[in-house]
């Protein structure tokens, strides 16, 4: 059974001067017990989709169902089944950690004690600071508290909108460990992230851009589907190198990727030797054929979209 079904949803925001299409005819199915990642850059429409699923935003067209409840008609049932963690930290900064948790437990008609086992792993990490005001917590701690609050009523489905944005790498890693644990307890998790490296941690991912879904698949399948050759190229003069690579006859795309450039060309059109020959005027040149990452696939898809 599908935990979440999104059927042809569109949402536009209108202002006097312009109309922004946040979601453009999106359909998605998320299975029960899945850890599903919504991957896309800022402004892709991820938060709008989350807010529609959380029943706080109405779609213009289309419908969505959560555990067979319609997000518009049966929103009351849904609110008891989901735990929603908005992208922005939205707990009471002037209440302590414990008071926040207690408050949200009560609002959701439960108590901390009743569901303590579910949150104990996470809450133990922030329990030493339970008398500290939420506003005084570090970024990672805040997210753990927010997750605890979203979990306190034992939801069947977790909607986590960019939970790791602005969180340090260690806390990010810890956070994903927690998500895996929650998944093993049978909770369906829909998580969004702008970080491509987190895509591999999901069971399935959807790549989203400009309100459209580019692809939905297992992370490894998305990589496997990549039917082009990809090279990592670096030299002393990176700027000149980028220009040279973009002017190369077989180049499909070339982007700066950390300390090297990723060059995408049609399969078997060139190899390392040919490239070294072409780039002979560069010093300290290194050319290496590499396996594509999700990010490479995403960039390529964007390229072909345009």
């Amino acid at each position, binding site marked *: 059974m599908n935990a979440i079904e999104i059927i042809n949803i569109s949402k536009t925001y209108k202002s006097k001067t312009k109309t922004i299409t946040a979601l453009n005819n999106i359909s998605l199915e998320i299975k029960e017990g899945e850890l599903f990642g919504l991957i896309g850059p800022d402004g892709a429409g991820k938060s709008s989709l989350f807010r529609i699923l959380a029943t706080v935003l109405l779609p213009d067209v289309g419908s969505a169902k959560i555990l067979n409840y319609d997000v518009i008609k049966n929103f009351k049932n849904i609110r008891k089944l989901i735990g929603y963690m*908005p992208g922005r930290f939205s707990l009471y900064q002037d209440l302590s950690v414990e008071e926040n948790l207690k408050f949200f437990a009560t609002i959701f008609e439960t108590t901390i004690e009743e569901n303590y086992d579910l949150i104990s792993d996470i809450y133990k990490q922030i329990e030493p600071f339970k008398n500290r005001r939420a506003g005084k917590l570090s970024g990672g701690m805040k997210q753990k508290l927010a997750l605890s609050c979203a979990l306190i009523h034992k939801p069947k489905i977790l909607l986590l909108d960019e939970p790791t944005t602005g969180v340090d790498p260690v806390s990010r890693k810890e956070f994903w460990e927690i998500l895996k644990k929650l998944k093993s307890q049978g909770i369906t998790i829909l998580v969004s992230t702008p970080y491509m490296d987190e895509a591999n941690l999901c069971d399935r991912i959807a790549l989203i851009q400009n309100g459209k879904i580019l692809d939905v698949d297992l992370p490894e399948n998305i990589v496997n589907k990549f039917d082009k050759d990809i090279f990592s190229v670096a030299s002393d003069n990176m700027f000149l190198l980028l220009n040279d690579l973009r002017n190369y006859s077989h180049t499909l795309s070339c982007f700066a990727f950390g300390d090297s450039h990723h060059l995408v060309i049609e399969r078997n059109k060139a190899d390392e030797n040919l490239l070294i020959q072409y780039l002979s005027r560069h010093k300290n040149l290194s050319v290496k054929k590499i396996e594509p990452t999700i990010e490479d696939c995403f960039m390529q898809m964007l390229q072909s979209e345009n």
Partner: protein
Amino acid sequence: MRQLKFLLIKEFQQILRNKLLVRLIIAVPIVQLVILPFAANYEIQNIKLSVVDNDHSEYSRKLINKFTSTNYFLLNGYFYSYKEAIHQLEKDNAELIIEIPKNFEKDLIRENETKIFITANAINGQTAGLSVSYSNSIIRDFNNDIRIEWLQPARINSLPTIEVTSSNWFNPKMNYKYFIVPGLMVLLVTLVGFLLTTINIVKEKEDGTIEQLNVSPLKKYQFILGKLIPFWIIGLVVLTIAQIVSFVLYGIYPVGSYLTIYLFAAIYLVALLGFGLFVSTLAETQQQAMFIAYFFMMIFILLGGLFAPIENMPNWAQFLTRLNPVSYFIEAIRMIILKGSGIKELATHFGIIILFAIIFNTLAVYSYHKTN
């Protein structure tokens, strides 16, 4: 019920934790009631007076004495010409000039008639108006004095005159504070009830915490009650502080009953908080909320009859005051405190304020949506 109880606990935790806010809630009514009744005093005293006496007669001296012997006027000096005197007025050394013409005494005795020229600085229209009317009554008094003086040898009462003696009902000494303090109480309750509620709800919007409440099974009425009850209580606390301060400081206590005041305030606050909630649904940021709230506060106060009597306003403005809940509370609290009116006499006021409460709250409930 448990949810509502927790909402209230949370709200009070937040308010009490905001030390500055708590201090302000207590200090504002005290400070305002200590300072404003003195500052907002309409009685005008020590009006600076310049005199141009062209007659230098016994009568002219008597008239000037009559002016300077009151507290209202303070003699700035005698001048030889009107030109010199007007120069004093221009330099703000004088607010009123009296010019007594030449042959003032002679004309008065021979022709039975003479004229005095009075000039008032009308930069402040109120001072000017009052000082002219004070002058008129002093001159009238002077007039009566000389008539009586002349008539003494003859039969008294040969000239019929009507003497007006007024008595100020409900405020016998015309104590300005009796009039302004009850109005200030209303102002304070309004300030706390309206401004704080509005900003508090918008803060939840700005912080995004309202989003968490919106996805919860919390019912709309629970949320609204959770927001209104704390400020309803705070409003009544402020009213109590105001009552204590005005009794201790000014000896003002209601001729009517405290119960009537509190009953009216309780309903008034429901109306006001509903309006605050409505405004908060319009605003997205605290800045917007503050500005909208201030806009209404200004109108509420200026069209509320606190400073300027409603009867003096043009008809269209009088009509607007009828749409202003503040004007009803000011009127009602004055009636209760000064006149001793009870629920029976205030039935219309109660009726209208209940109507306001229903309208504002319906409006607020309809415009507050958990989903957008």
